[in-house]
């Protein structure tokens, strides 16, 4: 497949899927959301401490790179600071990989089909994509040194161009296969996310906030509607009285 298909069309499709499926799925869910979805996600994806710390740490460092690339470059000007950042990233990657393998093994050994504790096909696929992203990310860090520096002028501007809806494919087209695999697996994960059980866990806090806002708003709307009805009735009565007097 061409680089344009992989890094311009696919991200567009993934974002479209994320947006549309998220809205549709949220509207189709019974509100307020049941805590059982949260519990199920926790059972399937929560995993070990290594997994959680590794994943959250990696997400944080990736976010740091995307949001503050210049500051990261300045940080990397000192060799020991570069080593610290790269070493931390590599350790987090190893922790996430070990935890993820444990999680996948646990899900493979899950109870009988039909049990709520058994992951769906899409959840299993999502875990597989996470594995690909983690392995390719770790391999990129090991094979192509100082990713925290070179990614600030290649992958980071590409990701930012996606956010600006102006995909600059040339920034990733010339990168090695492993880096492309890492980027593409992340793109596919964005598209698959709204189909997974993780989606319900992610929207649960949003739903709680919306529910707390929705009830008072509905009450106010009902009252306003009642006041309008009273005014309309009074107006109608006044009109009919005037006609009778005429």
């Amino acid at each position, binding site marked *: 497949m061409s680089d*344009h298909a992989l890094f*311009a069309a696919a991200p*567009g*499709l993934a*974002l*479209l899927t994320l*947006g*549309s499926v998220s*809205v*549709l799925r949220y*509207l189709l869910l019974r509100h307020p959301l049941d805590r059982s979805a949260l519990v199920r996600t926790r059972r399937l994806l929560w995993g070990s401490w290594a997994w959680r710390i590794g994943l959250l740490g990696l997400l944080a460092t990736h976010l740091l790179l995307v949001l503050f690339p*210049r500051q990261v*470059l*300045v940080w*990397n*000007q000192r*060799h020991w600071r570069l080593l610290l950042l790269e070493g931390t990233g590599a350790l987090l990657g190893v922790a996430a990989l070990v935890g993820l393998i444990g999680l996948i093994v646990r899900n493979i050994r899950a109870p009988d089909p039909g049990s709520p504790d058994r992951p769906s096909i899409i959840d299993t696929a999502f875990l597989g994509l996470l594995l690909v992203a983690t392995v390719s990310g770790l391999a990129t860090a090991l*094979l*192509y*040194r*100082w*990713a925290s*520096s*070179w990614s*600030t*002028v*290649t992958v980071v*501007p590409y990701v930012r*161009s996606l956010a600006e*809806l*102006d*995909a*600059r*494919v*040339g*920034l990733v087209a*010339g*990168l*090695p296969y492993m880096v492309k695999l890492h980027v593409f697996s992340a793109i596919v994960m964005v598209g698959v996310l709204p189909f997974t059980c993780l989606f319900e866990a992610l929207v649960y806090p949003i739903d709680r906030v919306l529910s707390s806002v929705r009830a008072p708003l509905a009450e106010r709307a009902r009252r306003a509607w009642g006041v309008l009805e009273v005014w309309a009735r009074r107006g109608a009565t006044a009109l009919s009285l005037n006609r009778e007097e005429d």
Partner: protein
Amino acid sequence: MITIRLFRVAVCAVAATLILVTPVRAGAPGEPAALFSTKCSSCHTYGLGDLVGPDLKGVTARHPRGWLLRWIRSSERMIREGDVTAVSLFRRYRQQRMPDHQLLDVQLEALLDYLAAGGPEADSRKAVRPISMAGVKDVTLGRDFFFGRRSMSSGSAACSSCHTIEDQEGTAGGSLGPDLTEVYSRYQDKALSQFLERDCLLRLSAARDRAVTRDESFAIRAYLRSADGGPTRADGVRAPSDDHSNDRR
């Protein structure tokens, strides 16, 4: 209820449209020197005689500007339409058809201005500082630029983000790009200077076509030469043994 559904459909449709109509940028328009190098120099020289096509020195004086613009966009169409000059050129240069170029008007105008102003010849005249003039200070400065201890004016990543180099202090640098220890003897000063001005993927991507400055380029080349075993004058005075060794290409 119908209004709410319609609203949801409209929101989804707007989101879909926004994503699907996202323009894909293949690359920002390059500077005319880079355009000449990438689009023209494989078939044309500037002042060095005919190659596959004619020497482009004085081309803006030989043909009207409007004619040149149409010719670069589609020489084939002009030949098909029977333009006398176009047909004559086509016959003279062994019927080698020049490929059509999908360039922006602003790029074409800039390219013709560049050729009219002296093209690559004028560029080489501007490069007055031979690398043999580089002293220890330049090498140190170049090393700082290479390893990012000093930021380049474009604010881009240091060379060592992607490239390894071995110098007197050891081996260091990233491994995304090739090892640059012997790059100076492979490419020499002129080619390296041109490369530093335009070709590095990372600088282009970060700064959208802003190249390193002449001073930065000079310092980096001085460091690359030093790492490759080249002589460095402590006083910055040109050494007889260095004479023109940098301009072999």
